[in-house]
């Protein structure tokens, strides 16, 4: 059969750590996103509430979700890269 990984990578000793961290961050973000959807569904008028700089909750929460995703991504990469260096340094064929 003509499928399966194109490249056989070396063992990734940090894989378990990255999976756990990824799932934790995913659930954190899913919770924040879920609350956003819940407010919009149950009480959309609440989104008119003024928050900061004359902006309402809808804009602050909406922009906040976008910025939060970027921040979580950066944090995730920092921790993953650190762990990869720590655990994979002995694997020459491991992830770079």
């Amino acid at each position, binding site marked *: *059969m*003509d*499928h*399966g*990984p*194109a*490249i056989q*990578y070396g063992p*990734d000793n940090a*894989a378990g750590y*990255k999976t756990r961290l*990824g*799932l934790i*961050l*995913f659930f954190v*973000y*899913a919770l924040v*996103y879920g609350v*956003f*959807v819940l407010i*919009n*569904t149950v009480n*959309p*008028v609440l*989104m*008119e509430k003024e928050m900061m*700089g*004359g*902006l*309402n*909750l*809808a*804009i602050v929460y*909406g*922009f906040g*979700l*976008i*910025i939060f*995703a*970027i921040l*979580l*991504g*950066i944090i*995730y*990469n920092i921790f*993953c*890269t650190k762990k*990869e260096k720590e655990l994979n340094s002995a694997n020459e064929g491991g*992830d*770079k």
Partner: protein
Amino acid sequence: MIYSASPFAIVVFIMFVLTVLGLSFYFARQTGSSKGYYTAGGTISWPVNGIAFAGDYLSAASFLGICGMIATAGYDGFLYSIGYLAGWVVALFVVAEPMKRLGKYTFTDALDSKFKSRGIQLAAGISSIVVSVFYLIPQMVGAGALVTPLLGLPHYVGVLMVGSIVIVIVATAGMKSTTYVQFLKGGLLIIFSTILVFSIVGKGLSKKPSDDYHNFQRLEAEIKNGAVELSDSSYAVSAVKSSAGIDFVKTEKNGTARWWQVKKEGSGIFLLECLSKTKKGDGTVLYNGEPKEAGKFFSVGHLSSIKVDGREIDKTGRLGPFSFFSTIKESTIVRFPQTVIEDGRDRVYVWYQKETDGSRVLRPGLKFKIDKGSSVTSKLNFVSLMLSLFFGTAALPHVLIRYYTVPSPADARKSTIVAIGAIGLFYVLTLYMGIGAMVNGVLDVESSNMAAPLLAKTFGVFLFAVISAIAFATVLGTVSGLIVAASGAVAHDLMTNFMGIKMSDAGKVKAGKISAVVVGGIAILLGILFKGMNVSFLVGLAFAIAASANLPAIIMILFWKKTTAKGVASSVVTGMVASLGIILLSPSMYAKYGLNPADAIFPIDNPGIISIPLSFIVLIAVSLMTQKKEAPKAS
């Protein structure tokens, strides 16, 4: 609206197309192997791949559809931006690295890597094609919408042009040329959208958006003996009709019919000018009572009051990124909703003025029925959409194949983060562009898709030409990615793997190219057929199919050891059939068929809330039932 072609816009457009084609022919010499054709040889660096991700993902739906939806429905359009971006969190934290480790050319490879199952190959291959084709339709519709104002050509010519150019891009150099077209387009889109937003905020807000903005008339009137009488005797009332709970008056002046909205003021009334499009019984179409060429069908969108610190003013001057929204919040926006009037044998589409508080525009509920007058079904429909957007991104075949273009799993992760940064920045800009279009008198009431390019036109031909060319490139980049994904599914998943057709490496490349031509041809046909539908709505449906058919299988293969091949194949088929079935029997599609939407078998338009859990349940149930018969299980 009547659009006139701008020579400068045509020059910019032609230069861009020539550059793209030049890139494709240049890379064609380096694309001899199937690995090179489908994955650019896995040699793309993560920063380039990240921006190419953005170029791939920020489709016509994002640029044209979301801006258009925000321009007509305010914050509700921005909810698409939030959902589209949130989906990348699933891609990064759950899918990116494992997909890179497991797959070769297509997402089917990753699903099938442990099982070697023909059932998975067939189901996932068909699913990739279905999702890609559903995603292709709005891109082609967007292409048709673009060439009309840019080049003064009809819709179908735009669709044909995009289809032909993309077929050349993909058929010459596959993923390599596609990647660099997407990189170029992604970078340019973000740069020039930022420039456009600075221009919008710098210009500020004004009750008269431009010197040539139409001055909508007001006619004084009174009711005498049950009939409407006008103070201006040059107008004669020829009909009074009601629609959407509003009274409308038809007048005749010099043989031209116009429609007016009846407004109450104290104990009296007055009439406000509407826009109208009349489809007459004999087949002729009139715009504001005259042929379209008369140019009496105006662009719309303005503020009727602007308040700053509680004071009413006519214009603000330069604003900041926060004060732009805080001023809109205190102001009143005139929107132009549509209603339909039956006038004898004529069908009249009327766009009437509706004053809406800025605070109402900047919170959800104008489009989605989640506020007053909502029902449990309408709220479920909204939740279903947000669920599909969240889970759809990580299951889109054209996004997933981009993980195979970088050298390592770590590069896949890093390129996803670059993508989130670039895409997130762009989505923040969409709210400025959409609201900017809403109040700057640029909206074509017949098609919201052109809101962003027409907004750019208010800042000069240069910005309009560049933004339009980029919008066109947006379509090119995304369609290229989709055709690579769909042709990979046909040639690699179905022909090579499922059907077991023996081909040399050169033969596989040839099969991919022929598939690309066929898929491109189908996309052209569908783009012409679906003219006029909001592109963001259509993409929302593609997300629902992807989230239902593909994501449960991906997640369970990665995280549930009892997953079996039959479970995966059943889940993909169930998700695809359930989501497609609900879409085809939904109120929106009933309206498209010319039937009454209230008679639709399924009361919701977005299937995700039913089809995603159903797909998970089927996978678990079938896997549990086939435990003893199959080996190996997913690890």
